[in-house]
């Protein structure tokens, strides 16, 4: 975590409230200029957290402090229009009857800036997202990517201390998404407030965020830099997101790792006690017959699924140690891999990492 002195100027929040079925209890801290990526399964409380930060939903308990100002201390609450906050949602939600320029000028105007000044500001913001030639267009005349950029410009035109982006790229098609992602990244580097980016796309989070927060079932399950999270996932969901086979297990000093399901994995980097063990899918090799030689881990497993991903295939395996293996398309055909078939899976002990749980 970051030094407390700078967090005081940034975001310091504890969000506690229940909404529908879910009880949310999420702590978020960030320094000015940082981008916090909030990931998690749908219905886990991500959007609820964002709406509470914006002031649209009231806290049951907790606090929200931004830029040294108290927005909510559990008793007194600033209304959304009193907060220096910017909000951008998946559907850009532009005001359909206003031109791009007036959409962006809406915020400054609402906060008492004169018409001319507000439009000048709006023009500047649209320029920053590369839309200086589309100021007069109505939202329906803009492409989805352009709409997203206008929505970003609109959210930033009020100089928010906290920028909330809830799945900002989710509604875009893949091509547009890639381009808009880099536009977004460029714009965010020039922004000195705190950004909270909610997404379920790991690529968004890894390319845009300085810190990742995983929220599952209303709770934070992991917090860290992308590098930390990538190498040491700490929940099944995080394991899936970063693409590692992850096991909750017990380790001993000899390098034996016993998984909760009764499987045995051997590693050259032993950790004693309750551990997480990871196996990269690319480290798994598949064989028709029992493999000879160096690999210390071999299991007889059944193929449950085969999915293609570019030039490689992901093979879902069930048995003693459930595994996802990533193999080339050639080996799929050479081995004649089919769902329901039994194969040998081998993993070198050096590829198995363990760390305390």
């Amino acid at each position, binding site marked *: 975590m970051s030094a407390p002195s700078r967090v005081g100027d940034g975001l310091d929040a504890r969000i506690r409230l229940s909404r529908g079925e879910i009880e949310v209890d999420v702590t978020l801290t960030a320094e000015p200029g940082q981008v916090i990526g909030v990931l998690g399964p749908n219905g886990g409380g991500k959007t609820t957290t964002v709406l509470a930060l914006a002031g*649209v939903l009231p806290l049951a308990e907790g606090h929200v402090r931004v830029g040294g100002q108290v927005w909510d201390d559990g008793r007194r609450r600033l209304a*959304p*229009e009193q907060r220096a906050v910017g909000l951008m949602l998946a559907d850009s939600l532009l005001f359909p009857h206003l031109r791009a320029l007036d959409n962006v000028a809406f915020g400054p105007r609402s906060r008492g800036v004169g018409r001319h000044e507000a439009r000048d500001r709006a023009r500047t913001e649209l320029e920053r997202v590369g839309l200086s030639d589309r100021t007069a267009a109505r939202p329906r005349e803009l492409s989805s990517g352009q709409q997203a950029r206008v929505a970003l410009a609109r959210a930033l035109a009020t100089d928010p201390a906290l920028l909330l982006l809830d799945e900002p790229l989710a509604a875009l098609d893949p091509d547009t998404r890639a381009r808009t992602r880099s536009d977004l990244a460029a714009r965010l580097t020039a922004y000195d407030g705190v950004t909270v980016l909610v997404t379920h796309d790991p690529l968004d989070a890894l390319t845009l965020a300085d810190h990742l927060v995983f929220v599952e079932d209303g709770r934070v399950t992991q917090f860290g830099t992308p590098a930390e999270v990538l190498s040491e996932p700490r929940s099944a969901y995080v394991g899936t997101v970063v693409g590692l086979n992850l096991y909750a297990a017990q380790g001993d000093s000899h390098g034996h790792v016993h998984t909760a399901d009764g499987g045995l994995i051997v590693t050259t980097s032993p950790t004693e006690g309750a551990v997480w063990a990871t196996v990269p899918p690319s480290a798994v090799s598949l064989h028709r017959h029992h493999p000879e030689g160096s690999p210390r881990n071999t299991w007889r497993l059944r193929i449950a699924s085969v999915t293609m991903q570019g030039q490689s295939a992901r093979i879902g395996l069930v048995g003693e140690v459930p595994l996802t293996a990533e193999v080339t398309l050639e080996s799929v055909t050479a081995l004649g891999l089919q769902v329901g078939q039994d194969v040998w899976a081998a993993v070198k002990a050096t590829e198995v990492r363990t760390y305390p749980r």
Partner: protein
Amino acid sequence: MRYAVRWRSRVALGVPAALALLLLVVPLVALLLRADWARIPADLATPTVLPALRLSLTTTSVTAVLCLLLGTPLAWFLARSEHRATSWVRALLTVPLVLPPVVGGVALLMTWGRNGLIGQYLTPFGIQIPFTTVAVVLAETFVAMPYYVLAVEGAMRGLDPRLESVARTLGASDLRYLRTVGIPLVLPGIASGLALAWARALGEFGATITFAGNFQGRTQTLPLLVYVELERDPQVAISISIMLLAVSVLVLGVLRGRWLR
């Protein structure tokens, strides 16, 4: 055999359907057939028609403005509220829709009359509401407002509530959101609500004659005049009726063409 069965069911359904259609259409045709088209302009220019026309136009316009100014905020509260009481308010609103207008007139008398719920406090100041033009407006508003509020509320419910969340984070108060985003986006709903309310007010008869009476130039609107002229000069009544029919069709056409699906 199968053919016979099909034929029989066709008749069983087709005959009542045709009857229903005839019940609705024949009176309109009869009205048009009995009209003396050449006389209509002269009929509409008679000294009794002009004051009634003017009165109808002013009172229905004032009613429309009242709907707009008072009904729009009510529609907004109904549209955004999730409180259980809201459905009760909405149910109350629909009562004037189904209430016999003459009952509405009696209710208005009980409210604004000399000894009425509110009227008793106005009498000492020499203010008398019943049998005045104000009473005509009150009667028309009573029957027309629900049409307006329900139409506008429906339109407002169609708005994405997240638009309001975004507007508020941008710094807009409720009033500013409504003025700059909410109302512009429901203008079609407001227009169709106004047209419906205005048409309903224009045709108002029962509540008006009960609560406001039938005084020429003061409370005698076009429908009331039709009623009177039917005794005195049926041809004038027919001419006015034709005009009202034309206006109704016009309103309907405007609604269909632009605002109704």
